[in-house]
């Protein structure tokens, strides 16, 4: 399979990249890991005239702590990096879990978190973990920088709030105050090289008194966008579950299923997916809560 013809640019600073993008606008595409973009180009779903690669820009590939306010992920952090990074594993393991299930080891060595978000696949492995972590994204364009919550970022399959002349430059994950835990489960057909049939991520934070201070559940592949489920947060907020088998988790899981909007396609039917949302959400909640109990 051949790539269509294009011009290639490899700026060395974000500003340079931004001005190039400002110049070419919709004719250009940003190249990060290329695991989605180049596939789409080979299949002639996209034929940009200009490719602007970010890979020669220093400092976009890592995560670091930002003066006590949280974590910053460089947009070119690869899935392999996120899965293997001690920092990510310790601070936000749900993201490491999601990253470790993305594609295959070969894909994970190239696929980037920025690219994964921009591609905006409903079945993304990274978006649900980032949604439950209340991530924000920073976009830079000719009119300057803006930061928005990830939940406002996705507009539809392949559609995001990013303007044609903007570049995703940072992903911010706010600090977590109390004891917290997260979990990610992916249901696919085979055990690797898989697109989610359904995936769920959850994040729980405990208050001092042992009640749930914050609960967030996000779902993949069951709506046009990776979906955060406010009803789950509402049900669990302030609750003090007896143990991981507390029926409140099932109740929350049912609410998640209610909120999902799955479709029937060749990978699976809507009713199966909806029920799987319930099962997987329930399992992630129980898993996260049992981690919390171990930490307390």
């Amino acid at each position, binding site marked *: *399979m051949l790539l269509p013809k294009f011009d290639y640019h490899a700026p060395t600073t974000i500003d340079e990249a931004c001005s190039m993008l400002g110049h070419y606008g919709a004719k250009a595409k940003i190249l990060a890991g290329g695991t989605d973009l180049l596939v789409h180009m080979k299949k002639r779903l996209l034929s940009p005239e200009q490719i602007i690669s970010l890979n020669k820009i220093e400092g976009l590939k890592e995560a670091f702590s930002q003066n006590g306010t949280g974590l910053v992920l460089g947009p070119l952090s690869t899935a392999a990096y996120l899965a293997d990074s001690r920092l990510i594993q310790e601070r936000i393991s749900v993201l490491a879990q999601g990253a470790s299930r993305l594609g295959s080891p070969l894909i994970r060595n190239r696929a980037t978190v920025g690219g994964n978000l921009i591609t905006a696949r409903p079945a993304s492995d990274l978006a649900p973990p980032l949604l439950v972590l209340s991530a924000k994204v920073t976009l830079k364009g000719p009119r300057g920088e803006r930061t928005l919550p990830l939940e406002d970022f996705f507009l539809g399959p392949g559609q995001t709030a990013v303007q044609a002349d903007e570049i995703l430059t940072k992903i911010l994950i706010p600090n977590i105050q109390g004891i917290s835990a997260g979990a990610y489960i992916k249901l696919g057909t*085979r*055990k690797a*090289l898989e697109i989610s049939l359904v995936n769920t991520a959850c994040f729980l934070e405990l208050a001092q008194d042992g009640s749930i201070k914050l609960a967030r559940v996000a779902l993949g592949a069951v709506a046009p966008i990776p979906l955060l489920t406010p009803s789950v947060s509402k049900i669990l907020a302030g609750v003090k579950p007896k143990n991981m088998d507390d029926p409140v988790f099932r109740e929350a899981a049912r609410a998640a299923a209610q909120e999902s909007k799955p479709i029937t396609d060749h990978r699976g039917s809507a009713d*199966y997916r909806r029920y799987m949302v319930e099962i997987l959400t329930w399992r992630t909640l129980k898993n996260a809560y049992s981690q919390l109990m171990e930490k307390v």
Partner: protein
Amino acid sequence: MNSYSVINSRAPRLDAPDKATGRAFYTDDLYFPNMLYGALLQSPLAHARILNIDISRAKRLPGVKSVVTAKDVQIIRYGVSPARYDETILAVDKVRYVGDEVAAVAAVDWETAQEALGLIQVDYEELPAVFDPFEAMTEGAPQIHDAYTRNICAEVHQEFGNVEAAFEQCDLIHEHRFVNKRQDAAFLEPNNAVAVYDQLGYLTLYTSTQVPHYVQRTVSMVLKIPIGRVRVVKPYVGGGFGPKASASTLELAACLLSIKTHRPVKLHFNREQVFLHSRARHQFFHTFKTGVKKDGTLLALHNTCILEGGAYSSFGIATVYYAGSLLGGPYKLPHMKYDGFRVYTNRPACGAQRGHGGVAARAGFEQQLDIIAEKLGIDPVELRLKNIMEAGDTTCNELNMSSLGMKECIEAIRDHSDWKQKKGRLPKGKGIGLACGFFVSGAGYPIYRSDTYHATVVVKISEDGGTVQLQTGSAEIGQGSDTAFAMIAAEALGVRYEDVRVVSGDTDLSVDLGAYSSRQTLMTGYAAKDAAEDAKCQILEVLSEALNVPVEKISVRNGLVFFEGATPDYMPIRLAYIKEHRGWPYDDRPHDDHLTFKEAARLAYLKRGTIVGTGKYKPPKLGGSFRGAAVGTSPAYGCSAMIAEVSVDLETGEVTVEKVTDAHDCGLAINRTSVEGQMEGSVAMGLGEALFEEVKFNDQGQIINASLGEYKIPTALDVPPVQSIIIESNEPNGPYGAKEVGEGAIMPTIPAILNAVYDATGVRITELPITSERIWRALKEKK
């Protein structure tokens, strides 16, 4: 155990070092000076009349050297079986599926060839299309080929014994329907071809094929070039599994373009085109009705099957016969009736894939045996053992089991898997299941009616006597056939395995029908042994004369010559040999204590010229005289049994195959490592078919999952550890008692998993693949 020096061991494969280092050449790795690159224009519609093709703009594109359509050739139809030659190089007046080839281009590079395709203007008149075989068979359905009303490509009605009368004798009759899905072979190397037409009018085609011989014949017939002027060479092939077992448009178009341009032309399929070309496993709609006595004795089977065939016949006639004939064994079944229909649809043509025609039949039937066992309260192992055939038995459809270690296979897996402790005692969500199967060890008849030898082999000894070259037209496609032939020849000659060099996959070398129907070990192996013995005989005759020792008193082993009784004085031979190698290094000195084969072979060369042994194989007349009796015949049958242990997530429906215990009777194992490799590969492919694989279409007849991302074959994480147990019977018709393993080994995999899933869940899945959703739905319905 036995007295063999070479075979029945674990020799490292001849091709492995080159393949491990990236040096092995596959067709796409070949580059020729001045080579052109081709591309094929394929139909975007499932069924349409071609009104006009305008190639003028494409021809004008700089860099384009040739554009061809059906108008550029005399139309000679071809296919697999002469009774159903229904294909043409390029579509003549109609296209019959999305992907049907319409035009071909050769240009100076890939990009130009691709660009030229976009400049070809085809005017189509879209015709109504039909995708469902049941619909295709109804009156008034769109007719795909003029000659075949109701789109019935082939129809089979056979009865052995008297099924209706037998059903009356039965205590239990069970009927159920079983459906598999259309498969893709998903070999990793996409099809490639390079054709080189030279100035003398000789055509050489390098191609990733399983069958150089059949490709040679087809090219010769379709392009009207004498067979002797067509040479087909098969470099290393990255897997075939069936769909590469016949000539394709890709190969014919490369030849045509090379002839037109007088330049080498390379063509390939990309992955999507591999799916479009298809020729893999059909979808089979089986209904089985089986009658038994209450003690479990099998009496009768009525099997009906509809095959969704796609737009062309390919192997289809054989497939529809196999879907019936391969249930004749391995159980004693006195009465069997079969009604089969292969139906054309506007989809890519289906053909042969590992376990040709028999895999879905076996899956459904072995499932039915488990249903019957449960109803009768008989352990599934016992039910099978009760009905099992033995060596020497003949099936009701006249297939002779000249060797059959079926019982030994069942007992081996039962004992190695701890069946008795597990069956019926596992917790909910865990299950164990078993199944059996058998397969031909080489089709009894060639694809075209002929008295041809199925294999000829040439063994040539180098002039110094030290290296044996084995020449064969057979096809090493990854199964390890070259290595097996080297081992057989080394054994037969009495030389070391390392001293045999195999040259294969080239129609210039010998006639060989190729790698399909699991035939090469038995058939080519037989010819290899025959050729080696011929060469050895010539050498020993010379030696016998020189030493005045009868031939019968001379033997060769590990490259050394042994004499029965007193060792004659061979010093004159040795001195002559040493003299001829004056100045050669020390290492070349012959053995201290024995005359060597090398010295004897050198002597033979000096007396007789180049020593060339020839061997051949043709099966005896096999099978009955009824219509279609040829399909299913074979000089031997391999058989196997497998136990699968699974766990099923009862909430999500996900199935994990935890462990597999597999036994296969391959006669005598030539290379034990290769036999295990075939068994393990079969398990993985069967597992994929059981759990994941399905080629899916939209309502326009387009494949919606034509990629290895969406068509899911197992990864390393999906396949469990496999315990492979080799059962060795002695096959009288095979070389050293050897027979097949490549396809028989897949037979029990799917039903063993199906039966294990039932054991784990209590629900019978009768439609493949066993997706998590299908199980979830079945469990929900059961509640």
